[in-house]
């Protein structure tokens, strides 16, 4: 069994927690779990309860949309140092896409339900966590908009 102290160390090594107060990090590590997935495995499927969120330590995963009758569309790939899953923050707490593992991947997951309870009591921790999540979400949104622009498509003509 992985010790909580070990998980705290693993959290400290992830860029998401850079500069975070040690007490806060230790509180979070109480909800953490070390996980490993092989290529082709799914961490979550669209519609599953979003009771955990993940920090990629090493490896690669793909965020995918299932399209009936077609191959799934890969929306984005994520690698070591990145974080995914914020559906645990937003009712109805369900995954909005599939998470497929591309290569041997090591993750730290945090129990969203456990954390929601802690954040309800500790607003300072809640603010700290949201302050770290929002820039990631903003960057992801900005990237998604850039992808939507189809910038490599045919160049526009003046006035189009």
């Amino acid at each position, binding site marked *: 069994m992985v010790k909580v102290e070990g998980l705290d160390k693993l959290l400290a090594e992830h860029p998401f927690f850079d500069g975070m107060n040690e007490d806060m990090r230790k509180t979070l590590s109480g909800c953490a779990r070390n996980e490993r997935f092989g290529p082709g495995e799914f961490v979550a499927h669209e519609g599953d309860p979003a009771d955990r969120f993940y920090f990629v330590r090493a490896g690669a995963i793909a965020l995918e949309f299932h399209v009936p009758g077609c*191959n799934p569309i890969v*929306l984005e790939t994520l690698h070591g140092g990145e974080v995914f899953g914020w559906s645990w923050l937003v009712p109805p707490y369900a995954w909005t896409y599939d998470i497929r593992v591309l290569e041997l991947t090591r993750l730290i997951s945090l129990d969203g339900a456990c954390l929601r309870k802690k954040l309800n009591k500790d607003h300072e921790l809640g603010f700290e966590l949201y302050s770290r999540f929002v820039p990631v979400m903003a960057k992801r949104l900005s990237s998604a908009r850039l992808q939507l622009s189809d910038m490599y498509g045919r160049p526009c003509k003046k006035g189009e």
Partner: protein
Amino acid sequence: MVKSTKPVPDSMTPAPFRVTARRQDLADTFTIELEAADSPRGFAFRPGQFNMLYHFGVGEVPISISGDAGAGKLIHTIRDVGAVTHGLSTLKKGDMVGVRGPFGSAWPVDAAEGSDVVIVAGGIGLAPLRPAIQHVLDNRDRYGRFVILYGARSPKDVLYLPELQSWRGRLDTYVDVTVDHAESGWAGNVGVVTKLIERANFDATHAVAMLCGPEIMMRFTVAELTARGMDRGDIHVSMERNMKCAVGHCGHCQFGPKFVCKDGPVFPYGEIEALLKARGV
């Protein structure tokens, strides 16, 4: 008939070149190799420069040179997007084409010696960068870390795939490729090219970046590079405008106070930053 005694400037007269090879790279993109009809001794140019290619009876278009400057061959990779480029796409081995050039400024491959070099390309923007990439690879010991980051629309739109794989296979070059969207069979990255910058290992304070792609991509890439600590003066971009005469006379490619054909197409980002952000320029 009175003959003009005024010499015709070479820069305005297309020279006849013969197509020696043609390759279809992507559904809408092809590469032609050309050889001067009267002097097949090679074609001198600097990485980043362009030629005006004249498809007889149709018209002329500016096309970046995409071959190795040291190899002596004249190579152009062209996207079939208009009447002239479509005409050029129909050329076969042995056909003739008119060439004026080379024109314009070049990638700062000499000034970059001793520094890390970061190439960021999007879509067909890899073509004008290929001569610079080849120059760095041919003189690898003169440069620090060498990073090539490339973004395309989808896996089937990845240009020069065999070369990207070959460059990636070298132990002295870091190559990362991403696409905007893919089906699940694609084993590579999906996401915007700017995301690749985070993972690349280079010293931003001692690096020179060369960017070519859609302007929106270059703007976001510059933001990412400067956030990483890179100076705007060390970032160079290749601009695309409607170039006609290629010598700064006609004004078609005017970009604020500059002419892309004459002052560019390669500019230090700091020189054109304000213009890129201005609406309607």
